[in-house]
């Protein structure tokens, strides 16, 4: 089925199962420990050997010597792979450059390991030790002796800024005459923010169990997009893609980190082939920080100019970012194409190569970092204008893509509604606009707000649905559920489409043998995968109606299909044998014709300790617009998680770069701090619901990432309101405030 026209009324609109607060169908399995994660499959490979990576201890240079004699002789060791004996592997550069329309280009997800003496990043695998037990492999891995010669690495974004070049992946825009508009405006801010490297810090570390059977490879692996795992592994190993099957039935979070493949899958697969025996490997927690991807750093200059009425006349957002050569960096300027009105716009991203670990996607890549800066700059502008920051955003709302013009309207932009309803629920009117005026005992109390946007992406996604003999339905798709609720909402979709209660639907996900699906990334998963299930169900409905001898408009409700006054139980239709339908939802150009995005508004009350400058969030209200809310429980969880992560980004998260060694120095969960329960008070989530008929027949948009978009800025703006200090270098921490706190005797 192709979605290339706005959706009309359809069976989803009945809203008997979809849109209802449904607890997770996989919940009981998870809380009872019966949902296996990648490392926990024992039955398929009772004889699995254990692999442990040895990772590079320098940031840039070469391996001079590598001595694995002791490791090889250590008890239980079966194999030690290094660049000297590893099988040949293939990287992106070994494949022809993809054309613009190439789907699934070869090598795009390849991740070759142990292919030479060159060290490109700290944490890169330099050896892989396989032994009978995990303990033996770990002990032997520590016996590998690696001698390096250090190269000169580029590890500082600030140092690379001057020579940065336009980022080919950024969506730069020059509209109108920015320079003149900015120069002549009565009110303006020119302000620079920086955001550090961030680590996804998901609960489940990356892990893989690799099993060969002849030339067929099966991976039990932790991945967000199954076919990227199979393609990446096959391309890297130089085997046909159809020879690799990946299973990611349950994934313990990803936040973008598991969009790529790493040493765990490639080295387990390579070693298993060589040994003729299954091999499993979990990346250790300290290794995750330097071996896997992270959110790259930014420096962002915001130049915003407005008339005295607050209407923006010039919007300038210039980002400097850095990553390994050829990578993307953090495209923090892009959302400023869409966020606010303004006739003159200068949106640019500049890139400088860095030899730090390779960057990648982390929840809302681009927006999460970009809005930290843009939404704080808007707060600065509101101060300059003497205007309420909510009103400033409302007067600059725009119902079309302001970079393209009125010819590209938003499909459904409810940012103003988010702002108004959020402000009302929070009690924004009680805010004191003058900083440092509200106190509660030893706490300086402040209110802050921000808005958020996250681009809506749709992806082709397929599902197979089967009406089984007993009248129940089986839903199968290679979609993943990374803790988000894909099992539940896809089951709800099938139940709604076929008029069945949810307990008559069984669902299987996360196996590449199932119909190729959207996967979980870029917030496209919920909307796209349920649209695929919708498409398959439409086909199944037709097949059911045909067998039941019904024609015309059919209604599927209460376990029956009816049309023209006749009603047949699905059980009876199924008695003649199962019926199966499989379809993929694909998309036309509605995302080009219409700007599509989810929106948010955040309101935060913060306390800053007048003595120590410790910062604690006291409460927070966020309002979200993401089209139809498919399931308010799972949607709310996404938002709560986004808010929590946004608070972390504002107040504590930072991968500390040690430029002498070219690595992230704080590589464990004690030193890379994310919020704990005590940091998160009551969080309130509001949904401004609507139906987005341009997005998909589900009329929903992405919600996984908009949750975090803008959150940190509301927190930082609240800190400003509490104590009058504007910290422009994230995270906002007490040592950056202390010197500005009230003087003490």
């Amino acid at each position: 089925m192709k979605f290339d026209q706005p959706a009309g009324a359809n069976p989803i609109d009945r809203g008997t199962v979809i849109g209802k607060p449904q607890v997770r169908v996989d919940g009981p399995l998870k809380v009872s420990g019966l949902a296996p994660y990648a490392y926990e499959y024992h039955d398929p490979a009772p004889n699995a050997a254990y692999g442990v990576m040895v990772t590079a201890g320098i940031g840039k240079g070469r391996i001079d010597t590598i001595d694995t004699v002791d490791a090889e002789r250590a008890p239980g060791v079966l194999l030690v792979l290094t660049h000297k004996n590893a099988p040949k592997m293939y990287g992106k550069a070994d494949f022809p450059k993809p054309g613009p329309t190439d789907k699934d280009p070869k090598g795009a997800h390849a991740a070759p390991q142990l292919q030479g003496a060159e060290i490109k990043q700290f944490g890169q695998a330099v050896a892989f030790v396989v032994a009978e037990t995990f303990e033996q492999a770990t002990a032997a891995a520590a016996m590998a002796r690696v001698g390096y010669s250090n190269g000169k690495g580029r590890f500082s974004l600030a140092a690379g800024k001057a020579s940065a070049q336009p980022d080919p992946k950024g969506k730069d825009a020059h509209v109108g005459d920015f320079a003149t508009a900015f120069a002549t405006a009565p009110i303006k801010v020119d302000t620079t923010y920086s955001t550090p490297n961030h680590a996804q810090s998901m609960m489940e570390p990356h892990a893989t169990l690799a099993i060969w059977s002849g030339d067929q490879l099966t991976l039990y692996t932790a991945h967000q997009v199954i076919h990227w795992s199979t393609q990446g592994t096959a391309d890297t190993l130089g085997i046909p893609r159809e020879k690799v099957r990946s299973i990611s039935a349950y994934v313990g979070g990803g936040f973008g980190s598991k969009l790529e493949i790493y040493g765990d899958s490639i080295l387990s697969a390579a070693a298993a082939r060589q040994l003729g025996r299954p091999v499993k490997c979990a990346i250790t927690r300290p290794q995750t920080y330097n071996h896997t991807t992270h959110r790259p750093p930014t420096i962002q200059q915001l130049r915003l100019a407005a008339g005295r009425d607050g209407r923006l006349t010039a919007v300038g957002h210039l980002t400097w970012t850095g990553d390994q050569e050829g990578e993307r960096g953090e495209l923090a300027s892009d959302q400023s194409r869409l966020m606010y009105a303004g006739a003159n716009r200068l949106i640019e991203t500049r890139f400088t190569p860095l030899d730090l670990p390779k960057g990648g996607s982390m929840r809302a890549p681009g927006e999460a970092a970009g809005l930290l800066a843009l939404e704080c700059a808007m707060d600065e502008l509101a101060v300059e204008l003497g205007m309420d920051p909510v009103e400033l955003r409302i007067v600059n709302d725009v119902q079309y893509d302001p970079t393209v013009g009125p010819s590209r309207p938003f499909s459904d932009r409810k940012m103003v509604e988010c702002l108004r309803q959020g402000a009302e629920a929070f009690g924004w009117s009680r805010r004191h606009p003058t900083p440092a005026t509200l106190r509660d005992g030893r706490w300086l109390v402040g209110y802050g707000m921000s808005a958020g946007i996250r681009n809506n992406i749709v992806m082709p996604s397929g599902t197979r649905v089967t009406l089984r003999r007993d009248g129940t339905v089986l839903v199968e798709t290679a979609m993943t559920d990374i803790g988000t609720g894909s099992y539940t909402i896809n089951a709800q979709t099938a139940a709604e489409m076929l008029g069945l209660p949810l307990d008559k639907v069984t669902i299987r996900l996360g196996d590449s043998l199932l119909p190729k699906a959207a996967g979980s990334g870029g917030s496209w998963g919920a909307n796209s995968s349920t649209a695929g299930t919708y498409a398959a169900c439409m086909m199944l409905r037709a097949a059911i109606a045909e067998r039941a001898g019904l024609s015309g408009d059919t209604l599927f409700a209460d376990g029956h299909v009816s049309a023209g006054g006749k009603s047949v139980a699905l059980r009876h239709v199924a008695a003649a044998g199962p019926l199966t339908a499989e379809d993929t939802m694909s998309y036309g150009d509605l995302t080009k014709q219409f700007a599509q995005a989810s929106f948010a508004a955040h309101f935060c009350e913060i306390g800053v300790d007048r003595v120590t400058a410790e910062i604690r969030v006291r409460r927070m209200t966020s309002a979200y617009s993401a089209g139809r809310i498919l399931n308010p429980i799972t949607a709310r969880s996404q938002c709560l998680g986004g808010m929590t992560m946004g608070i972390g980004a504002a107040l504590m998260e930072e991968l500390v770069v040690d430029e002498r060694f070219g690595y992230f120095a704080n590589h464990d969960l004690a030193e890379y701090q994310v919020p704990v329960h005590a940091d998160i008070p009551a969080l309130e989530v509001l949904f401004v619901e609507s139906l987005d008929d341009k997005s998909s027949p589900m009329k929903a948009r992405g919600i996984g990432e908009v949750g975090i978009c803008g959150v940190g800025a509301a927190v930082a703006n609240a800190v400003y309101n509490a104590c009058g200090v504007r910290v422009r270098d994230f995270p906002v921490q007490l040592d950056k405030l202390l010197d500005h706190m009230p003087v003490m005797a």
Partner: protein
Amino acid sequence: MRAFTYERVTTAQAAAQAVAAQPGAKFIAGGTNLLDLAKLEIETPTHLVDVNRVAGLDRIVPTPDGGLRIGALVRNTDLAADHRVRTDYAVLTRALLAGASGQLRNKATTAGNLLQRTRCVYFYDTSKPCNKRKPGSGCAARGGYSRGLAVVGVSDQCIAQHPSDMAVAMRLLDAKVETVMPDGATRAIPITDFHTLPGKTPWIETVLRPGEFITAVTLPRPLGGVHSYAKVRDRASYAFALVSLAAVDGPGGRRFAFGGIAPKPWRVEAAEPMGSAGAVADHVLAEAAPTADNRYKLTLVRRLLADHFETGAAA
């Protein structure tokens, strides 16, 4: 982690003998610090002597002179909850409850807590130079990431902080550490002498001798007065102190001890009679040698003291 052998002992002297008998042997109590260090191969014990079943060390009993003897195996949770501690040594309860998490405190023991090692990130990374981990290899923290590290009592060789909260309260209370040697001899070490400064030997952290086993920590008679423990950190729980201030304002005067700023719990008795926060701070920080990253700790010490003088006792 390296392979090790394991044995379980039931008497204190047997524990001391078992560790003395084998180079590379270590006691293991709650294991919350030692296991982490062993997994990362920062410590590579060849033999573990499990002391959890040593009889009688999990009790808190009164001493003849009106104090308390806290067995080495008393868990941090139980110590914090003990009604005598809560009543007479409230600063200790407060310090304990400000540390780690509930789960960790359920496992962590009194002796293990005193002996926990620094949280310096370079100490935790065997690919980096660290004089404490590998004598003579250098100190990566100097010129590196040192936001959490010490500002006083440091040396050229090492600027690591002692991370314990409990030990700060014990220092304030003039605790003594009771031990037994392999030959059965015992001694009681005043806590002020127990931890050593890095100097030229940062890998030596206490005055304990090979095999010397901690049996208890004793507290003298209660001080009375108002007890407080203020712990400053970036997140509200489950974080080590950037700076902490343990204080007692009692009939015998004021006492202050600090955590997070030194290689050991930091108390400067000579500062305590001073009449102003600034004067106390000047003494406490007399030989401070901060880095650019952790200079803010000096400000924090001053502000905590100022607040303490202003409000009587921090909350």
